[in-house]
């Protein structure tokens, strides 16, 4: 019965002829917060790429005579205990945040997509093994798992990336698994199967493209949480080695001088918050523009 009514509705309401891209642009750029997010992210990317040209100071070697200087015209956000300019280290920290954010998210997304797709498509025992393993990874609180893995792998930016990628991968696998199950019920997949198409061809050329919109939204939203988790790890002292600039460890280093130089902790924390906020706003905007039905799902 319900099937009949939906069919009738599909026939009676022919899809309006609007350019998809134009509709996307209209919904996406309509909200002020999305624009705000895009501006922040653009600034972040510029800061990360042009870091050496944007600041006159060295981010790693400070001037000990200028140790713990209060904010002034020469050092807009003051200096830390080693006399390094806080603003300058913030700008270099943007590199760390962006590199970790993007590389982790892309790695985790690709691995998760492949696992979810394979599990959903082949089903049976393969599905059992993959999805139970994902459940097991998801049973750990994300930060705990990342901490454990980062401890096993040792410090260094590439190990933080691996740890965070493994910790976030099950989310993609689970979403992709669900999407694969629903997409492969479509008649065009049945038609492909009837034609005798190769399995991998069906998966990559037909199922994957139809699952992309929710995955793109998930990737954008995950970028924010990965950056937040990276900050958490570097706050705990795992990850980027000391002279390197990471926002999380800057907050930690500033703790000792909270009373005399609160800006040392406050500035990097605000930077983390702004960037995560920006990614979330852009993610929400993408979700509403690509597929409003996803509201509440992702």
């Amino acid at each position, binding site marked *: 019965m319900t099937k009949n009514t939906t069919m009738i509705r599909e026939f009676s309401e022919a899809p309006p002829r609007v350019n998809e891209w134009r509709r996307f642009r209209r919904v996406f750029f309509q909200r002020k917060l999305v624009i705000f997010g895009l501006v922040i992210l653009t600034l972040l990317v510029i800061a990360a790429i042009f870091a050496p040209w944007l600041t006159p100071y060295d981010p790693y070697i400070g001037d000990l005579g200028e140790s713990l200087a209060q904010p002034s015209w020469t050092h807009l956000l003051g200096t830390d205990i080693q006399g390094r300019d806080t603003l300058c280290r913030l700008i270099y920290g943007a590199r760390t945040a962006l590199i970790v954010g993007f590389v982790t998210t892309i790695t985790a997304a690709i691995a998760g997509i492949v696992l979810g797709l394979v599990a959903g498509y082949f089903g049976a025992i393969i599905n059992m093994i993959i999805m139970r393993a994902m459940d*097991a990874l998801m049973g750990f609180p994300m930060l*705990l798992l990342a901490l454990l893995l980062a401890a096993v792998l040792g410090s260094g930016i590439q190990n933080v990336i691996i740890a965070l990628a493994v910790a976030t991968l099950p989310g993609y696998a689970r979403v992709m698994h669900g999407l694969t199950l629903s997409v492969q019920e479509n008649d065009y997949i049945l038609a492909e199967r009837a034609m005798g198409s190769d399995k991998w061809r069906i998966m990559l050329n037909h199922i994957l493209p139809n699952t992309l919109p929710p995955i793109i939204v998930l990737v954008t939203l995950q970028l924010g949480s990965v950056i937040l988790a990276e900050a958490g790890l570097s706050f705990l002292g795992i990850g980027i080695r000391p002279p390197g600039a990471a926002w999380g460890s800057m907050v930690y280093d500033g703790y000792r001088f*909270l009373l005399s130089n609160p800006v040392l902790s406050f500035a990097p924390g605000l930077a983390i918050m702004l960037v995560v906020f920006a990614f979330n706003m852009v993610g929400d905007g993408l979700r509403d523009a690509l597929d409003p039905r996803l509201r509440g799902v992702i």
Partner: protein
Amino acid sequence: MTSYIIRRLIQGIIVLIIMTLIVFFAMRLLPGDPLTIFIGQQASSGSLSGAQLESLRHEYGLDKPVMMQYFDWFGGIFRGDLGTSIYYHEDVGKLLGERFPITLHLGLVAFIIANVFGILLGLFAGIRRGTWIDSVSTTLANIGITIPVFWLGALLIYVFGLKLHWLPIYGYTSPFEDFWLNTKQIIMPVICLAITGMAYTARQMRSAMLEVIRQDYIRTAWSKGLPERTIIIKHALKNSLIPVITLMGIGLGMVFGGAVIVETVFAIPGVGRLLVTSVFAQDYVVVQSGTLLIAAIVISCNLIVDISYGWLDPRIRYG
């Protein structure tokens, strides 16, 4: 229903066993030898011979094949014997037993606050959409989701601890010893632990509420002339809670994940801090059991959540 519960239980146990494997073998891949780290000082001063090292290795069972070590540990769990910490020289069960109540105390208080306030904020934002309540609630939710917890800790310490001197900035005293001091000590950690969960709950509650109040049965309730109070509490609230309860399972995981950071910020001797210290000390025995404890709690909560659906929404059938 019973068969569904049994099936979910079995699934949960399988997942837990996989988790023990992950933790156990991940810890064994750690570079370095925990014994040399822990006796580092003695070894470097030359007071420990190779033979003594071997006997220590034997004492902690580190000379056995890895698979044997795994089964020793796994079997020990059922006998209530979690092994001896290499770093603290203490029984792991005792170490965890001392610290777990602290983490649980903070975690439960934070969990309750997060859900009560999250549900209230989301509820009012949903039924008063577009008003100032909605704006305040949405803004709070956005802040809660994006704020780094350790940074919120720094802000709170700065304002309430260092500037206003209202609250102690670190430590934990048992509530049975000094209830008032304990309450003052846990205010800031609880806020830090609760904020993220509260934000997610409020957001989920708001969208669930917006969805529910559009339903036909709500319109029927209005046209019957029921007061708004009754409609919201009796008809809308229960139905909009379903997605929020799903989130509670995840929320509890967040509370325990957050404990790692919050206990470090406020120097609280709980399981989170124990785990951080043990990870750095490469103390296998503590890390594997501590992680397993937290994982078991998270998995059981998710199980309870799954089962409670049927009670909340009789339309859900367990296939």
